């Protein structure tokens, strides 16, 4: 199909400006972006949070979130201008000719209705097909994207289906009216790497089979390299650079793009485990669980002084439960936790203040780990009062010194509330709070996974510097192998509550591996645009030999 200009342009955005409402009035968040998308083309939008990529993706549907407005520019979809079109006209396009795949399918499926009802809603409401036809079509699509049990899965409720499968079901739902354009908004960000592969493959198949154009939004350059024909790099609501995928990856023009490509290169030199030293922290044969279900099975691991042990595994593998046992929040049913060779009381409230002080924790979500009503001084000051008995001017001085250590200017930040900080700054405050207790061991639970890559890297570098400065030991819980590669000395791989492999980093990243380690390692996306094809081909080959590498989730 061609339009009046004689090309096959599907979407043409010119000078798009988007504003968000703040207390002081309207604040511009996207400052005039142009975007062209041809039929059947996949365009990647990449950038850190706040770059405006989701907002632009939604604007392509003529949609602005509550509290936002499309303030200027034109959005032409298939020759029709959407910004000035009446809401009813836009509504007829949405879900029909342009559809949307959300970041978290678990949250974007309505918990009150079966998958099939939600799948059929679009086609029936838009008058594309009748209910019976839509159901047959759904089963056909479910089968094409390799959902298990395609005949029956549609008749389950969202809570009865795993995250990876839901995300694929949502892709199928987006295809239900055979749209011209699908907006994928970070569709794999909430998934484990092992699950991500299947979803990426399903999305690519679906888009290729029907020749659908797509806007693929992500902050992960390696993922977008697999999916997109062309990439637009965005920052602070402005285009940084745009280009063909291969060309942009091999020859980035702008400094910012180069930074994004560089991030996975930060490496800490591996330090060998000291000989004949009592480990500072040890889990010995720990079995633990919630109620009747056992989550950890006979887990043993050791953390030595000034070393970083990374605990990796997908969600549900028991990594965070291990941290809960160590901190005494969850007493184990068997086994014990030793500190400097001495057993620690199983429950935190039986531990002495000093035992508590030496073991601190940093959490995944700095947003929820900070009390929104407490100012920075209070947040960092509390452990200083509680553990070290500081008060008055001494306390304030120490808080300022800690802010210096985490590279935040004390005068600017000491009186701020968490709401006045960015995600990375919040995580730095959480680090300062842990550091305030003058600990020997810090448990870091996915501390970088909620952050943008560049910000995350800053946090990793900070943690590395603090480790040397204060002789800290880290237990680094993560599902991200790039983080492991960057910061770990030793690696412990967990799968379904058991330790499947452990050893120095260098050994873990060289074959041969345990099957699960292999799956985990091979699932980490690489910048090479051919990586996914190669991986899928390799796995298909392995499957022929009877070796199936699959995540627990699928």
């Amino acid at each position, binding site marked *: 199909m061609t339009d009046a200009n004689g090309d096959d342009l599907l979407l043409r955005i010119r000078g798009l400006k988007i504003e968000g409402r703040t207390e002081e009035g309207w604040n511009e968040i996207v400052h005039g972006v142009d975007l062209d998308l041809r039929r059947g083309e996949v365009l990647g939008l990449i950038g850190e949070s706040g770059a405006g990529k989701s907002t632009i993706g939604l604007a392509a549907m003529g*949609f602005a979130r509550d509290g936002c407005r499309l303030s200027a520019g034109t959005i032409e979809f298939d020759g029709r201008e959407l910004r000035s079109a009446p809401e009813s006209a836009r509504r*007829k396009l949405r*879900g029909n000719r342009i559809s*949307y795949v959300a970041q978290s399918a678990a*949250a974007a499926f*309505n918990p009150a*209705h079966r998958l099939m009802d939600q799948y059929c809603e679009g086609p029936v*409401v838009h008058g594309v097909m009748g209910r019976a036809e839509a159901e047959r079509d759904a089963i056909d699509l479910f089968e094409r994207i390799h959902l298990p049990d395609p005949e029956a899965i549609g008749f389950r*409720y969202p809570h009865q289906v795993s995250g990876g499968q839901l995300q694929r079901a949502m892709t199928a739902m987006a295809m239900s009216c055979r749209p011209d354009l699908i907006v994928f908004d970070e569709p794999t960000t909430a998934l484990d790497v092992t699950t991500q592969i299947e979803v990426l493959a399903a999305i690519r198949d679906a888009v290729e089979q029907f020749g659908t154009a797509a806007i693929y939004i992500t902050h992960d350059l390696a993922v977008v390299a697999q999916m997109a024909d062309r990439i637009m790099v965005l920052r602070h609501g402005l285009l940084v650079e745009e280009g063909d995928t291969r060309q942009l990856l091999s020859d980035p023009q702008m400094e910012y793009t180069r930074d994004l490509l560089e991030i996975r290169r930060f490496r800490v030199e591996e330090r060998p485990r000291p000989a004949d030293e009592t480990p500072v922290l040890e889990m010995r044969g720990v079995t633990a669980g919630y109620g009747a279900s056992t989550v950890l099975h006979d887990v043993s691991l050791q953390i030595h002084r000034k070393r970083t042990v990374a605990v990796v595994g997908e969600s549900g593998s028991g990594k965070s439960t291990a941290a809960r046992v160590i901190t005494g929040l969850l007493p184990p049913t068997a086994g014990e936790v030793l500190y400097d060779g001495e057993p620690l009381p199983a429950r935190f409230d039986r531990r002495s203040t000093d035992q508590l002080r030496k073991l601190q924790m940093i959490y995944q979500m700095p947003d929820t780990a900070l009390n929104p009503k407490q100012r920075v001084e209070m947040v960092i000051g509390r452990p200083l009062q509680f553990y070290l008995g500081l008060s008055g001017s001494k306390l304030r001085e120490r808080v300022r010194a800690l802010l210096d250590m985490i590279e935040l200017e004390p005068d600017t930040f000491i009186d701020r509330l968490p709401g006045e900080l960015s995600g990375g700054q919040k995580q730095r405050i959480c680090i300062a709070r842990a550091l305030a207790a003058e600990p020997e061991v810090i448990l870091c639970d996915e501390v970088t996974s909620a952050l943008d890559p560049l910000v995350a890297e800053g946090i990793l570098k900070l943690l590395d510097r603090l480790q040397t400065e204060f002789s800290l030991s880290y237990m680094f819980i993560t599902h991200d192998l790039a983080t492991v590669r960057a910061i770990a000395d030793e690696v412990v791989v967990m799968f379904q509550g058991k330790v499947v492999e452990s050893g120095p980093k260098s050994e873990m990243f060289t074959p041969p591996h345990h099957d699960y380690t292999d799956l985990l390692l091979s699932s980490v996306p690489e910048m090479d645009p051919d990586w996914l094809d190669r991986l899928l081909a390799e796995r298909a080959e392995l499957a022929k030999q009877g070796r199936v590498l699959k995540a627990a989730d699928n």
Partner: protein
Amino acid sequence: MDAVLKMVAQRLALGLLTLFVVSLIIFASVEMLPGDVAEEILGQSATPETVAALRRDLGLDRPAHIRYFEWLGDMAQGDFGRSLANKREITELLGTRLWNTLFLAGYAAVIAVPLSLALGILAALYRNSLYDRLVNSATLTSISFPEFFVAYIMIAIFAVSWRWFPAIVNVTAETPLDERLYKAFLPAIVLTMVITAHMMRMTRAAIINLMASPYIEMARLKGLTRRRIILHHALPNALAPIINVIALNLAYLVVGVVVVEVVFVYPGLGQLIIDSVTKRDIPVVQACSLIFALTYILLNLLADILSILSNPRLLHPR
């Protein structure tokens, strides 16, 4: 499904336990009142000997726990004893009164529940519009006045000035339904005004609370109309809190109508309980209290069960 049955059984057992505790409290508080039934019957001029004789006749000289279980046993079989005031069977006395109160409560509920649901849904649909503000302030105003005040205003306007409806609702067992509906209209409206605000605001709040959920955004991006989004996507997920507020308000209709019944001289339980209290007709007061407790427990039980049924996570476990 087994899980649901188990949960319903648990709730039922809890309800029975609550009822048992309430009966204990009722019995104990009546025991603690000075004087007893025998003194009440014989009046102030009675000699201690005659009182003691009557106590023996009535079995009041036996220990309290024996009398309690006897009373409870009789209650369980539907025998509420006799009224002291007019010697009639309480069951008989309660029969028409309870029916009258339930009729009035049901009448008000049939008007109030759909009305407040509709008002609440519409308010959510047109949030922050003039309509929304109007409904909010109107319902708030009506709940802010004491019900006897509203009742007298209604009587002054609709019964005295315009003479559309009677000011006194004298119904008997023989009154035909249409006449009953006509006569009880004013009290039903007063009750509706009292309970609508609460239910309407909860409906609105429960729906609006969900409007920021990702699945509502998804529904909008599927190109659905606002109406369908609210009715099909938000409402089913908002049911549990709404059901609970409705149950509380319905219980209030049965238990809290006392004032309205007195204003309209309506022959319901409220009138009866007030008469009985003034006459110190203790067996009747006990029976009424137990019926009120039973109403609360049953309606809340029903709300619990309906909330469970509205939640697919409980209905269809993984």
